[in-house]
């Protein structure tokens, strides 16, 4: 810390540093930003990661493949099910196991429910970051419905641990389809309420418009994926590019915007919630019969080689790279976590903006800190 301060010797007058985090209300976790301020204007900032580093990638080398799945929950806990799916798909592809259509459909539905739940929490927190505290309760109220569905079917609410190599832990609850349909009807009424409360608000639009601009070129070079990247026009939806599970069977739009500012990222996520509901609607009545689990050997050993599987998590592209030596544990594991790459663009986006804009930009990027530190 001292070294950094000395090295960055305040050569320009009236500049000072503040440490935003590791304990700060709007970093949503233990992220530390060393912000160089001039008055209220951010000159530059450096993110310092590692406050919640648990060495998950190294831990994975000591665990079996079925166990690794439950470590990926702890990366981006808001898209736990999608992260699990990445490892499952990797193992299934490596062993060339074909899972039944039923599994694919259920996985996709739960994926999209996870995405909606994640975006609801993001919306709730985004309003709170900008000072509209009421949004937080509206978002959580609606998210509760999804968590109840998860609880009934998967047992868990946040970290569902529903996937396993070869299928699912257990079959869906008899109420699942009914509950999901009820939720869709409910949330289609509530989502316009989100727009009424926040999206159309003059103050909100002023706070978000032309704040934190990210061009398409920069988004690509920083590797900003997910809704944040798509708001800059970077077409990066893995669900479209490399359809996995049942995404090949459904019709949906990839939400793309050109503006690349915080408002575009906001609108991208709101539209994604509509699109996710559209996907669920197409699948929920057509879940085919079949087995929810393909029998596998008790000990999974991947053949020697290198494997990579990517999925579209709630915040962008989530990739798993596994190098195997044919053992029951992987030889090396690397996770490509979307938030780490999204964070790298923060400095570029927030330069010469106000400190209040920094908060707005961070909330529009929707950072989840355990995913950055791994």
């Amino acid at each position, binding site marked *: 810390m001292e070294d950094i301060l000395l090295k960055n010797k305040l050569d320009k007058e009236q500049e000072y540093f503040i440490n935003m985090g590791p304990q700060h209300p709007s970093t949503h976790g233990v992220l530390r930003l060393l912000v160089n301020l001039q008055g*209220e204007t951010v000159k530059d900032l450096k993110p310092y990661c590692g406050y919640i580093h648990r060495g998950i990638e190294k831990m994975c080398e000591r665990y079996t493949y079925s166990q690794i799945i439950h470590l990926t929950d702890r990366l981006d806990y808001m898209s736990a099910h999608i992260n699990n799916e990445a490892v499952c798909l990797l193992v299934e592809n490596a062993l060339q196991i074909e899972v039944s259509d039923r599994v694919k459909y259920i996985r996709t539905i739960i994926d999209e429910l996870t995405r909606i739940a994640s975006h609801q929490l993001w919306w709730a927190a985004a309003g709170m970051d900008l000072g509209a505290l009421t949004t937080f309760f509206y978002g959580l109220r609606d998210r509760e419905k999804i968590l109840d569905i998860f609880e009934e079917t998967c047992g868990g609410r946040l970290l569902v641990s529903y996937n396993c190599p070869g299928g699912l832990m257990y079959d869906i609850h008899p109420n699942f389809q009914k509950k999901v349909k009820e939720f869709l009807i409910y949330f289609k009424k509530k989502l316009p309420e989100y727009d009424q409360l926040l999206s159309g608000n003059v103050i909100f639009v002023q706070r978000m418009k032309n704040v934190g601009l990210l061009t398409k070129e920069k988004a690509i070079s920083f590797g900003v994926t997910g809704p944040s990247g798509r708001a800059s026009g970077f077409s990066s939806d893995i669900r479209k590019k490399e359809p996995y599970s049942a995404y090949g069977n459904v019709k949906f739009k990839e939400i793309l915007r050109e503006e690349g500012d915080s408002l575009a990222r906001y609108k991208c996520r709101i539209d994604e919630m509509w699109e996710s509901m559209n996907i669920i609607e197409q699948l929920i009545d057509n879940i085919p019969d079949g087995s929810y689990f393909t029998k596998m050997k008790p000990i999974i050993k991947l053949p020697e080689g290198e494997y990579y599987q990517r999925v579209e998590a709630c915040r962008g592209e989530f990739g798993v790279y596994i190098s195997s030596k044919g053992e029951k544990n992987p030889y090396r594991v690397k996770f490509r976590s979307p938030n780490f790459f999204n964070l790298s663009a923060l400095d570029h986006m927030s330069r010469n903006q106000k*400190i*209040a804009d920094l908060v707005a930009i961070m909330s529009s990027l929707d950072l989840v800190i355990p995913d950055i530190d791994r």
Partner: protein
Amino acid sequence: MFLYDFSELTSSIHNSISSVMSPLATTVVEMVIAGIVFLLFYALVGLILVYAERKICAFFQCRLGPMRVGKWGLMQTIADFIKLLMKELIMIKNADKLLFNLAPFIVIIASFLAIGAIPFAKGLHALDFDIGVLYVMAVSSIGVLGILLAGWSSNNKYSLIGAMRSGAQVVSYELSVGLSLMTIVVLAGTMQFSEIVEAQNTGWFIFKGHIPALIAFVIFIISSTAETNRGPFDLAEAESELTAGFHTEYSGIKFALFFLGEYMNMFIVASIAATVFLGGWMPLHIVGLDSFNMIMDYIPPFIWFISKTAIIIFIMMWIKWTFPRLRIDQLLTLEWKYLLPINLVNITLMALCVLNQWHF
């Protein structure tokens, strides 16, 4: 008129005290009585407002709010107050001790001074200057000094940013508050609160002064919300940016004083809005409907005053729990580029109205 004149009560108290004491002692005793009454009133209003805010914000947020302590959580604020009293007062290293301790009291004193000039009912006010409006504006702007000192003396950069914001904000919005009140002073022709209320005997100024008074009322509500550092103008304590802004380092009762000061300032601006625009303790009268006016007269003036104030406080809470926060440059743009020019035009318009007898 059915209105009870409280000056009968106050003068009878004055007479009974002065019959047994010297004039100097009478003044001292009367001041002590007034002080105690205001202290009690202050504490009571603080408790009620904190409870009301928690309940109202809960209902906006689909919650129930405090429900455990007492019936409907009525005792919650008292329990909180006891907790705050018993908390440790943390003193920060390298903080400017004198200013750090002084700051909350400056905030409280400023609101205390202002509350004395408010007419609660006919004859029921402590100070009735002929420059009442000017006095209230002057003392209420002392409060920002406390916020600036708190931010400066805390030896914390977040606090300092909060204090800098607060300084810029209050100084700017003071202009709009002043000018919107001046618009009504032009209409009323006096700065004395009691006379302003009396002048609204035939109709509240918001109706009498029609368009310019309405504009002035809206501007007053916006800029007084900003002046009291309440959302969406709560930049000085912007929670998501500056953790708690100027009172980040305060704990226990000193924090409670800032907290109380904020609510009292809200009460003061709401009661000034009620007095100047909505007729203060004057009942609602509609010319021509004599029986209606008679019924309105039966409602005591104090109830009229409190209910008008409560409505304005509710509007301010409604605004706070709905809107996101502004950014500092947008805040200053709103004042200097929009509110101030509109205000200046408005005051000219009001002068024209008064000159040409266009008002009712």
